[in-house]
């Protein structure tokens, strides 16, 4: 029975990594936002399961915050931003999807090797959760690096933050205050970024980062 509990936790954490790969694979803006909502949903399920295993009720609050804020409010808001800004509906990538996925594979392998070596003494649940969380963080970073459009970079940033929450849920004893403040800082970041998006577009008529590079004289 105990074994099954651990297995479900692994399954959910692995599902989060898989959803990160799905984020990397999408090439349509709205599909990307939907997958991001799915990402948050998997995260909230994973955190809720951790709360159940560790018998830590405050983690349920974290799961609830993830569910309401990240799986509902932020995707809906991003949908509206995309609609209002009239952004081109395809996601522009810097390199092709194939090489990006291969790089993602490499990152997952890296995080497995590093984490499992570094945390050999910790109990297996926290250890493998940490390995998955690091992969999600690295995949989020990869997504931010390989996208040209500011909105998809925001999605990358948010998925990175989901990875951090997964890590925090896996490591026992993170206070609730920290989690709430993290959640709200993400919301604030989202608002600030949203304001910035509108400002950037007013300035450059585009959310393509290349336009800003050109403006600064950094031609590639």
């Amino acid at each position, binding site marked *: 029975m105990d074994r099954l509990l651990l*297995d*479900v936790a*692994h*399954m959910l954490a*692995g599902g989060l990594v*898989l959803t990160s790969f799905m984020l990397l*694979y999408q090439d349509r803006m709205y599909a990307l936002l939907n997958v991001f909502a799915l990402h948050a949903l998997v995260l909230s399920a994973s955190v809720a399961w951790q709360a159940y295993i560790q018998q830590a009720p405050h983690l349920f609050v974290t799961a609830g915050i993830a569910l309401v804020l990240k799986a509902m409010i932020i995707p809906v808001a991003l949908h509206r931003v995309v609609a209002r800004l009239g952004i081109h509906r395809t996601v522009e990538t810097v390199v092709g999807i*194939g090489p990006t*996925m291969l790089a993602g594979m490499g990152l997952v392998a890296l995080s*497995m090797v590093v984490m499992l070596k570094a945390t050999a003494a910790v109990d297996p649940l926290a250890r493998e959760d940490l390995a998955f969380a690091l992969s999600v963080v690295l995949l989020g970073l990869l997504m931010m690096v390989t996208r040209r459009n500011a909105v998809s970079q925001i999605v990358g940033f948010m998925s990175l933050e989901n990875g951090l929450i997964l890590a925090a849920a896996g490591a026992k004893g993170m206070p609730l205050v920290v989690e709430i403040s993290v959640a709200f800082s993400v919301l604030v970041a989202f608002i600030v970024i949203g304001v910035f998006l509108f400002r950037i577009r007013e300035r450059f008529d585009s959310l393509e980062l290349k336009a800003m590079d050109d403006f600064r004289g950094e031609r590639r």
Partner: protein
Amino acid sequence: MALIHSLAVQGVQMLLVLLLAPLLLAFTRKVKARLLRRRGPPLLQGYRDLIRLMRKEVVLAHNASWLFRSGPYMIFAATWVAAALVPTFATGLKFSWTADLIAITALIASARFFLALLGMDVGTSFGGIGSSREMMFASLAEPAMIMIAFTLALVAGSTQLSVIAQFMLTHTSLRVSLGLALAALVIVALAENARIPVDNPATHLELTMVHEAMVLEYSGRHLAVLEFAAALKLLLYLSLIGCIFVPWGLAPTGSSLGAYAVGMAAYLGKLAVGGFLLVLLETSIAKMRVFRVPEFLGIALMLGLLGTLLRFVSRSF
């Protein structure tokens, strides 16, 4: 006596896949039509189509070689053997020592090789396009299949399907690498059977067709045999997924008749559920562009690799 018993069970299995394959195809068509609020053909239509095609005259191109005439039978034989090796309602059949995942992959690959040759045989442009696309997809789908086999072998300690199914029955647990292998196997199965995100099985009018383009020149009994082989392949993949990931109900070696009957009922249930899920997926998504398919299959390869990696790095995954 034991020998006769096991031979009989193996024989039943070989006939069973033959009988069920057209029914499964007709079932998917029926469910698809119902989901689109059409009535759809009756369930026996699969058999009727085959019988009708068998009776029709064969029209051959003037420059068709001997390969063009004998190829369909080779494809059918290879696919039938592969489908008969997968444990459907019972494990530990007479020939289960040959029911190796890699052997099955190789049988399907050789069937595909002949199909690609046949597509190019009479030199029509459609056939050539179909063959080249089939090979492009296969170059990604086969490594993915091999990676899935590796993942399963690492988990279960064998590439033999009977052993894997037994292992899954006795060591039931959720494993991340198995989940990844399942996702990869579903993608490979969709691509191999020319189902919707990759190819549309119901059209002859698109420039994007792959499987239909290769068999376009065929008629009469040759076409019947090729379509039968395609139906068998669909059955093979569904039973493969069933016996590896949902092995419940499989009758072990030398069981009583009752256990075999339970296994048979479970198998029919699995096929129905699998076919329904397949059709549900097909009706909810659109076909993708041909040049996006390598990315899609690349994901299967990646998932297989990831599954192997997770299993390899950490013992407990």
